């Protein structure tokens, strides 16, 4: 698969815009938004509606960004589903059970994510186990450890923690009573990942890895380090969401978080990332996440049966993959003709 550098599209002619990889995602987002705006009415168009789907988008988005980068580099991460509850449980046990300061709990929770990411990275780079299987393995292992340790330490599958005012303000409050602070963290993550993937020289390494790992290695890219770094980033993202959830809902559960596995992959794919790696963009992932969240929340405003929402997301996923292929073919044809 060819590597793709979105930097080259500097001219903003109509042709270059329509051939940008994000165009399909943008059209998808607009179609979905207009559809639900028509059904959901004034409430959905106003601040309550926006904050509603942005709150959902922020959490899945913080995970979808690094998961998307991993997919661009040709790897999957299923373990995010159990890192979310593991990190929230770690934070709740440290702060709620042992009554340590909030910062200790936050750092403890984040290190759970980084550690799981490191293990994933080591398994994927040191063995021949494909990342899909490796991370399913770590997902189950982490799930079991979380349950076992929670029951051993606390004797319970849920641990309560009521955070202090500052921590609550930073990680679990609602701006204007509606907009979860996670939205602002998400925007921060988008900026960081955009810089990393599209502006810094490391971004091309990620694309190169997904294009052809062997050639990338031969070209002098430290492929193993990049892969491990990306796995740790996705562990970090999942852990961050887990901690934000404890601070928001004041309790950690051993179960839960499984929904993030497929939800994050769907956001990434709807956002135009190629499943085989080598192509994708941060703006695409952002749009994919927004589309996913609008459908997820839109169904409640549109008073549709929630199962209809799942059908729409399923269809959207298939349409996204088909249209991405179409847009890619368009872009390729154009590039070939120009020669």
């Amino acid at each position, binding site marked *: 698969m060819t590597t793709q550098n979105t930097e080259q599209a500097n001219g903003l002619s109509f042709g270059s815009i329509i051939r940008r990889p994000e165009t399909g995602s943008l059209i998808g987002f607009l179609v979905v938004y207009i559809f639900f705006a028509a059904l*959901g009415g004034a*409430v959905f168009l106003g601040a*309550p*509606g926006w*904050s*509603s*789907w942005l*709150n*959902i988008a922020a*959490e899945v988005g913080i995970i979808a960004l690094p998961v998307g980068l991993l997919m661009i580099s040709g790897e999957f991460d299923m373990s995010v589903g159990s890192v979310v509850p593991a990190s929230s449980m770690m934070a709740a046990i440290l702060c709620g059970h042992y009554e340590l300061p909030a910062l200790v709990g936050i750092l403890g929770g984040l290190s759970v994510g980084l550690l799981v990411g490191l293990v994933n990275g080591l398994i994927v780079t040191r063995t021949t186990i494909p990342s899909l299987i490796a991370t399913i393995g770590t997902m189950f292992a982490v799930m079991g450890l979380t349950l076992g340790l929670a*029951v051993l330490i606390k*004797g*319970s599958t*849920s641990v*309560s923690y*009521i955070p202090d005012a500052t921590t609550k303000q930073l990680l679990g409050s*609602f701006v204007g*009573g*509606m907009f*979860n602070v996670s939205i602002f963290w998400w925007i921060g993550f988008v900026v960081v990942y955009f810089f990393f993937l599209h502006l810094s020289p490391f971004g091309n390494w990620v694309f190169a890895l997904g294009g052809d790992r062997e050639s990338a290695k031969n070209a002098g890219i430290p492929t193993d380090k990049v892969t491990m770094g990306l796995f740790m980033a996705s562990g970090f993202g999942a852990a961050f969401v887990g901690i934000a*959830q404890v601070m*928001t*809902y*004041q*309790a950690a*559960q051993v*179960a*839960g*978080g*499984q*929904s*993030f596995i*497929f*939800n994050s992959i769907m956001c990434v794919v709807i956002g135009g990332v190629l499943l085989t790696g080598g192509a994708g963009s941060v703006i695409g992932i952002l749009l994919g996440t927004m589309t996913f969240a609008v459908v*997820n*929340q839109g*169904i*409640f*405003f549109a*008073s549709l*049966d*929630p*199962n209809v*929402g*799942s059908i729409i*997301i399923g269809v959207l996923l298939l349409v996204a993959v088909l249209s991405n292929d179409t847009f890619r073919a368009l872009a390729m044809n154009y590039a070939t003709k120009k020669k």
Partner: protein
Amino acid sequence: MKMTKSFVATATNAIIATCVAGSAMAADIYVIGGKPDDPFWSRVKMGAEDAGIVAEMQGGSVTWLGPQNYDNLGPDAAELIRQAIDQGADAIVGPDWVPEAMDPAFEAVVAAGIPLVIYNAGGMEATDKLGALNYVGAVDYKSGFAAGEYLGNAGKTNGACVNTLPGAANIEAFCAGFNAGIEAVGGAGSVLQLPATSFGDATAVAQAVRAHLLQNPEIDALFAIGDADTNAAVSGIQQAGKADQVSICGMNFNESILANIQAGTQACAIDQQGYQQGFFAVSILNNYVNYGVTIPTREILTGPGIIDSSNVELVIEGVKAGAR
């Protein structure tokens, strides 16, 4: 079938009569339950042991038999029942968690003429089928009903049950009970079904609740089916800016929920009161074995127990004592 049952019943009564005839006898009661370190079961165990104080004063004893883990629950529990018979139990208390695996062992208890009380799981259906004395426990439908009735009596007229696990029989029973409860006092009930993609995700539950409340402004009462969902739904209500209008009750409780009830952000929590299950099951059997007295009320309900602002302080004391 019916003949066997009545024969067994007669035999049981005959044996009990012989035992009881010779002055008051000490009752060695065996209680089969969950792991002692399971938070719910530790409360049941405490209730059983508190009732056991009376049994011990009369020369009897209470022995707790719990599995090491829940990996092989049915067969393990059946094994514990047989152990109790072998150790010469005068009376046995047990939950009918997995009828297929456990019923043969319970039948052996009744066949050996040992008085049996089913508690926690199984209901009257299992109790009657096995020929046990009584059932002590909570019923899902009635728990939901109590929440609906409570909110209806508090002046709420339109309730929705937040079902995060559509299709699960006990959850459907909670919701059906809630709707029937609020309808019984003149309100209307509905169910907010969440898609499968949001199960276990507090944010998804909170946002769904919030959207539903904004889109259906007539709703003024909610019922959530577990403590995690209740926490999420409370957040959803606040984000919708409807804390003044919408009241919520939820199943089970934890520290944050008791704090919410104290703060007034949650109206009530429904508890199945495990302590009562252990306490009454043991008391019924102790009195029966010692004096031949019975409780003619069949199906002793230990739940729903309602926790609201009027008794939350008492519940917090109970939590500290380990009984709740």
